[in-house]
């Protein structure tokens, strides 16, 4: 390992850790639902809906995989409810994946240099940096998947079987990918032990399979996600959609030019998932590699993502990053100093956009409820009830976008509500009651304003002038770009 690779590795690790609690500026929908379910499990043994130690978390209708939540629960008990703690498992998984990819590459190529390059390349890959800085189930599952593959290559039947199937408990994309890897890997690497490997893997996955059939919600979601669930789709339509989705996973525009959604869509400086100069060593690596397994791995990785509806999924397709990086590392020894200079410039460009422009440009899209939760905690005794509008964005004032959020999860998580409050919520047509908190669309002309009733609204829904005399502005909150985002009003 020379000085240059060590420096690059340090840069990669730095990019994963630098201001990880504040960039992305706030927890996303998926992150907060994972965070709160972990808190709820740690404190009551039940999720936010009152299910006892579930294997599928209904959350806000997204049915989360259980692994991240169960790993996070004890961490929150020990270290508290903060963004850093929520993202910690993903950060650690991301760092360990850097190590594991090197080990896999070394096992399959017996080339120390290529193994080091694959680790270095993964550490500076925007796609993996982005995933490692968020509490993404897919990133945790990717670590277990990679570890399982390494153990499988090392012919550790039991350990690899456990780790590979654990990744199925980590993220839904692995449900299809892991059985394929277990089948192919069993034949390729564990010839004598393949039946033991297959049966053991099946047995460890059994609780998940049973839960899928017994848990109506999780099953129902899994049945609406695939492309064949599109209403009125024909067999030809399924095939065409699959081909389109599958090819999209290898679309150079997404991979190298503008796939990483960290600035506005029309912004020409949107970075790609991989640093664009790596396209050259990737093509060389794909052609030169003697090991077919890398190509097979690359080709089967996006199958699960291609079978689901919707556009390209950054996280659904994250598994593809490992074979892509290994193939790039194989083609890397042909690269000269000019190529390296270009790569470093592109890395600098990505860092600049990620750390400087991302929080500013997309500030409005984040639900910045953390400071609000802390503020509302201070007026808790004073308030008779608190109306919280779940919409956010500057849709009213500047005809901007209107977003629909899940503020109750942020309030519950950062104020450390008793889990019983969310588990016993009362839902009507228009409102959901969480103790003092009422989540609804605040309608200034309909809602009754009375003393000590608080209103939390976004800048998109300010009180009209004729009502302002009945209200007192208590606090304002800005988003990460510094623009006004939320207001708290109190009835006089």
């Amino acid at each position, binding site marked *: 390992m020379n000085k240059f690779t060590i420096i690059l590795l340090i840069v990669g690790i730095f990019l994963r850790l630098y201001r990880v609690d504040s960039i992305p500026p706030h927890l996303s929908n998926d992150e907060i639902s994972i965070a709160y379910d972990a808190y709820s499990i740690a404190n009551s043994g039940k999720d936010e809906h009152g299910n006892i130690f579930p294997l599928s978390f209904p959350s806000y209708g997204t049915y989360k995989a259980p692994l991240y939540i169960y790993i996070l629960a004890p961490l929150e008990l020990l270290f508290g409810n903060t963004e850093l703690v929520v993202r910690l498992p993903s950060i650690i998984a991301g760092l360990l994946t850097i190590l594991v990819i090197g080990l896999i590459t070394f096992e399959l190529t017996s080339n120390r240099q290529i193994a080091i390059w694959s680790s270095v390349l993964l550490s500076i890959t925007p796609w993996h940096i982005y995933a490692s800085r968020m509490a993404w189930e897919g990133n945790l599952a990717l670590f277990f998947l990679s570890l399982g593959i390494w153990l499988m290559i090392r012919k550790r039947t039991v350990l690899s079987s456990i780790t590979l199937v654990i990744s199925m408990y980590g993220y839904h994309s692995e449900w299809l990918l892991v059985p394929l890897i277990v089948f192919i890997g069993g034949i390729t690497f564990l010839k004598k032990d393949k039946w033991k490997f297959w049966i053991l893997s099946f047995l460890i996955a059994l609780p998940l399979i049973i839960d899928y059939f017994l848990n109506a919600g999780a099953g129902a979601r899994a049945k609406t996600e695939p492309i064949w669930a599109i209403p009125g789709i024909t067999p030809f339509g399924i095939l065409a959609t699959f081909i389109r989705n599958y090819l999209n996973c290898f679309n150079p*525009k997404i991979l190298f*030019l503008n796939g990483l959604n960290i600035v506005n869509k029309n*912004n*020409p400086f949107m970075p790609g998932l991989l640093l664009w100069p790596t396209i050259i060593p990737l093509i060389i690596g794909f052609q030169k590699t003697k090991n077919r397994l890398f190509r097979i791995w690359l080709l089967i990785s996006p199958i699960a993502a291609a079978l689901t509806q919707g556009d390209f999924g950054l996280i659904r397709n994250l598994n593809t990053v490992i074979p892509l990086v290994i193939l790039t590392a194989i083609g890397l020894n042909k690269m000269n100093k000019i190529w390296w200079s270009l790569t470093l410039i592109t890395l600098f460009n990505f860092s600049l956009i990620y750390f*400087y422009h991302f929080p500013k440009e997309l500030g409005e899209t984040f639900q910045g409820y953390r400071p609000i939760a802390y503020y509302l905690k201070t007026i808790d005794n004073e308030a008779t009830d608190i109306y919280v509008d779940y919409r956010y964005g500057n849709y009213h004032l500047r005809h901007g976008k209107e977003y629909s959020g899940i503020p109750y999860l942020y309030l519950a998580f950062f104020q450390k509500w008793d889990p019983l409050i969310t588990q016993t919520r009362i839902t009507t047509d228009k409102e959901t009651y969480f103790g003092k908190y009422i989540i609804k669309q605040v309608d200034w002309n309909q809602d009754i304003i009375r003393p000590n009733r608080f209103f939390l609204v976004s800048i998109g829904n300010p009180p009209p002038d004729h009502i302002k005399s009945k209200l007192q502005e208590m606090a304002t909150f800005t988003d990460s770009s510094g623009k006004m985002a939320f207001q708290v009003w109190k009835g006089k």
Partner: protein
Amino acid sequence: MVQKWLKHILLIIGVFLLIFISINIQKPFWQSPTYHETILNFQKDQDIFPYKIRTIWWNKSIILISLIERTIDLIWTDNFFYLPLICLFLLIKKRRWINLGLIIIGLILISIENDPNPGKYFFWLIPLFIAGIIK
């Protein structure tokens, strides 16, 4: 011998068709008001790079980036059942780099047009493809 001649003739026809495509470009996308609006919009609201080099180099690079993106869109989307993509893969497989390069130039020329008409122009690239697959 006949195949060799045919190959050369098709290649020459293909090059002429490329010239014809380039002559027929009515309005490059970088002259369209929508494109300028997009560029101006993001420059007005966001200081995309906190350095002055933005105005010197990056504004020009936007055209290049947009052109590459538009060309990839032509190749990678399901136009004519992925015909351009299949053609390119076949030429890569056969290692016909000249034909491949000329077809890519053709696709770049098509995507320069603000409102490209792939239905009309894709077929003008067929001579180059056939010249590439003839042994």
